[in-house]
């Protein structure tokens, strides 16, 4: 009996199988891996801003507290962006002719806000609130990275749901003493109270922080 398949059919079958496997793998990485990459999540992206504002210069260099500019961070859900008036508190007198600061002066003259572009942005179906985190001893660094060392702001943490839940399952090791909350270079030292002591001091625990309704309300 003559062979039904010619020898070339072997090759075709192999190629077909490899192709199918590749399709499955490719599909899976497109569906599952690709959305989790730093590239898609904009991690460590420098965002082009209308004015090249440097946290490194203003916070680490000049020692200005985060709350000088982000005034509502301890009292409201939004941290708040500084209005032009805040910049002009100083820049009405220092660096008054710098071309770099022209958009700031124009903004004041024309009464139009500076269009800052977002660095960290949660989808709007997620509820987030700064006040509770600051009040319970979570430092800015836990979510924003070492802002005071950034010459241009960049997103330092993925801010995925997994990231939030990681801490919400057991916040204690991430809490800091009140005086360290705004210091993004702070490190735990032997004198730091233990995680358990901090959790007690801030009355953290006894709530299920992983309930969907905490963040999706």
């Amino acid at each position, binding site marked *: 009996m003559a062979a039904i398949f010619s020898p070339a059919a072997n090759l075709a079958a192999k190629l077909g199988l490899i192709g199918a496997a590749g399709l499955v793998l490719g599909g899976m990485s497109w569906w599952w891996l690709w959305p989790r990459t730093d590239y898609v999540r904009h991690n460590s992206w420098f965002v082009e801003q209308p004015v090249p504002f440097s946290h490194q210069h203003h916070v680490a260099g000049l020692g200005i*507290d985060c709350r000088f500019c982000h005034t509502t961070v301890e009292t409201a859900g939004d941290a708040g962006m500084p*209005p032009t008036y805040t910049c*002009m508190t100083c820049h009405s007198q220092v660096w008054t002719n710098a071309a770099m600061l022209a958009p700031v002066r124009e903004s004041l003259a024309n009464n139009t806000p500076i269009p*800052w572009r*977002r660095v960290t942005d949660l989808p*709007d179906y997620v509820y987030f609130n700064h006040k509770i985190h600051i009040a319970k001893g979570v430092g800015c660094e836990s979510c924003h990275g070492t802002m005071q060392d950034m010459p241009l702001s960049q997103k330092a943490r993925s801010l995925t749901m997994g990231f939030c839940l990681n801490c919400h399952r057991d916040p204690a090791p991430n809490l800091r003493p009140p005086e360290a909350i705004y210091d993004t270079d702070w490190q735990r030292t032997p004198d730091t109270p233990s995680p358990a002591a901090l959790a007690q001091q801030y009355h953290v625990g006894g709530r299920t922080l992983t309930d969907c309704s905490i963040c999706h309300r």
Partner: protein
Amino acid sequence: MSPRGALTLFTVLALLSGCDDMTVQPKAGAWSPEATLVTPPQDTVAWGDAALKPPPLTLALLQRGQQRFRIDCTPCHSELGDGNGMVVQRGFPAPPSYHIDRLRQAPTQHFYDVMTDGYGAMYSFAGRVSPPDRWAIAAYIRALQLSQHPPATAVQTSR
């Protein structure tokens, strides 16, 4: 589930999947243009920004004042209040020291008013420091002044 029910469910779900995923919603946030307006619209008063009588002097008030002073005032006035803060060292016109006679004799209300209205080269802090905090800072400036000029009766010589 009957095949017909399954089909209906499938159709409904398939149609729903085309709905907006609510990633972008028309909520007001820190980025809304009205939140970062350079100057607020005419005749608006910041929420909770009504004039206030000075609160009683307590330790908590002074501690609050110290915290707020270190956030909003030290860049120029320095922690000592001598007017030699970091921004002044980078070229900002130097403010007067709090320890000169004129400011030691000024009423506490004067400090409150300087924060509310600004003073010369110093911009107003009305939008950044709430009225209760203004009194707390004013009280703390009084404490700073005392620390540099303690009354003779308060100074004890140690033997």
